[in-house]
């Protein structure tokens, strides 16, 4: 059967990728020469006894293979280790951060999908007109700006009107529920807008080329020969077909969203996953960095997997 086969194949690929990522994560952090955990026992003036103690405590006296098995077993129970900087379990630190990141990223992504699609279709439809060129150049402009630079520019432009960073105003005394969420919304506006604008440029270009490609297909010629108005051809015939590759590309840009949110959250001190990455880099907090990297990889793999399935669902031509 067409469906089962495809889903099995994709699921197997996703699972293997996650497994490779998990293993890679182990090798990266522990098996390299001069690795991070060994550095921990290099406290200045550490006695050999302390070193042995530390090595034993972190299980570094075991063979790499045994360490790997321990790592896998702990991972299976959701144990990602303990943060070096505040002794909290990495899992709870991560959950907290993810909860903050998702609304911010979601708002920015929605913004860019809606506006990117509109201008992308316009740019392809009105190609070789002022509007067409305008949309392309605007998109290219936003696409070229480094994410954190765009964020910093927005900060400079809105100085005095919008909060500069963080998620809530620390000095609001006992705000009501509405006041609290208005406050959060105000803080979220700039980070979301930055992500939205950067992605907007990318999506416009992607939608535009998908549309151009579809407009070159034979069925568009047929529709035109039938005497359908341009409007119907573009919106009813071409647009629906052009959306197929766009779904995949939006899912594939998850990696880009992740990268963007690391920079954006640093600019705006938004307490999410991205800030966790930059903080744990600054503090050399390896367990947190390792856990975050794992979660980011798994989520990117997951979204690619979902995109594959969606694509398959929407496009009956795919058989493998």
């Amino acid at each position, binding site marked *: 059967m067409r469906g089962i086969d495809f889903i099995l194949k994709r699921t197997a690929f996703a699972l293997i990728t996650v497994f490779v990522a998990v293993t890679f994560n182990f090798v990266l952090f522990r098996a390299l020469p001069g690795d991070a955990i060994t550095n921990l026992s290099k406290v200045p003036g550490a006695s050999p006894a302390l070193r042995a103690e530390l090595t034993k405590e972190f299980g570094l006296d075991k063979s790499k293979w045994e360490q790997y098995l321990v790592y896998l077993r702990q991972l299976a129970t959701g144990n990602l280790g303990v943060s070096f900087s505040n002794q909290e379990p990495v899992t709870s630190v991560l959950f907290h951060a993810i909860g903050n990141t998702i609304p911010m990223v979601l708002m920015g992504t929605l913004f860019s999908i809606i506006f990117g699609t509109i201008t992308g279709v316009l740019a392809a439809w009105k190609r070789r007109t002022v509007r067409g060129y305008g949309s392309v150049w605007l998109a290219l402009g936003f696409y070229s700006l*480094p994410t*954190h630079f765009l964020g*910093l520019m927005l900060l400079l432009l809105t100085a005095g009107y919008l909060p500069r960073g963080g998620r809530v105003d620390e000095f609001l005394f006992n705000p009501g529920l509405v006041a609290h969420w208005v406050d959060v919304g105000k803080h979220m506006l700039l980070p979301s807008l930055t992500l939205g604008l950067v992605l907007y440029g990318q999506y416009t270009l992607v939608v535009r080329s998908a549309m151009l490609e579809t407009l070159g297909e034979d069925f568009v010629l047929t529709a035109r020969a039938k005497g359908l108005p341009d409007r119907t051809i573009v919106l009813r015939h071409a647009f629906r077909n052009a959306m197929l590759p766009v779904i995949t590309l939006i899912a594939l840009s998850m990696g880009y969203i992740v990268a963007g949110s690391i920079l954006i959250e640093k600019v705006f001190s938004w307490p999410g996953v991205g800030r966790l990455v930059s903080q744990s880099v600054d503090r050399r907090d390896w367990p947190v960095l390792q856990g975050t990297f794992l979660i980011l990889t798994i989520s990117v793999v997951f979204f690619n997997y979902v995109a594959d399935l969606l694509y398959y669902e929407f496009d009956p031509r795919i058989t493998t």
Partner: protein
Amino acid sequence: MSATLENEPGVETGSSAQRLRTAVWGILKDRPSAIAGAVMLAGFVLVAVFAPVLAPHGIHEIVGPPFSTPGAYPPLGLDDGGGDILSLLMWGARISLTVGFAASMVAILVGGTIGVAAGFFGGATDTILMRITDYFLAIPDVPLMIVVAAIWGPSLLHIVLVIGLLLWTSTARIVRAQVKSVRERVYVKRARALGAGNARIIFRHVLPQVAPLLVANTVLTIAVAIFDETALAFLGLSDPSKISWGKMIKNATESAAISAGAWWTIVPPGICVALVILACTLMGQALEDALNPRLRVAHLAARGFRLLPRTLRDDA
């Protein structure tokens, strides 16, 4: 013997470097945006090369009071340490462009080798190499760069290697597809029948055909590499002793330039990065479109049908 081969229709004569130059130039000259990109990029490279002559001040020279505003004398103002922004931009161009070019060279070398090997040998080699490529494509590259750069420690060489070793995947896929089609062409089969070995076929017959596409890919990769350098610098993972555009942005944010309203410490390096990315994108996409065999007829073209190349990539 080789003369008859080279005179086969469709195979141009002349040295391969010459052929590549004509091919690349032929594509660029009909596209104004590509020319604009090429001119911008060339301008930045020239400024970087001649920075010691052009820059009015040295990197560590203190020119005046911190955060002096732009005006007649320091044309772009001074940074938090009283350094001249214009001079720093010129010196920074050297590091930023070096990282961009070197990292994309690494990426092209790795991606090209894997792509050629997978496409040319096919079979199990192809399957294994493409699987590896798929896994690398699935792993988010910027976080991986951050992790590796953090573990290796900050240095220019590490940054180049980290960026280069993670950017090769798209090159490998594009090159593989192209090599696969070149491999099946008659003149390659004829060369093989005449006793040419794999090495000769790859270097004499396959690579020259793939080279223009590699150039297009290199140019696009430079843009990504420079963006990645800026990002890594912003996270404090670049070489602390080297000034790049990314480092300038980072320094400005750390020295409270935002709250001081000193926009001139951030805007110039940011604009420079954006212009280089724009230049590379314009140039690389024009090249890639022209080389992409799938030329399309746009049926909505208002007057009559004309051949329109897809002007922007669809396979990001």
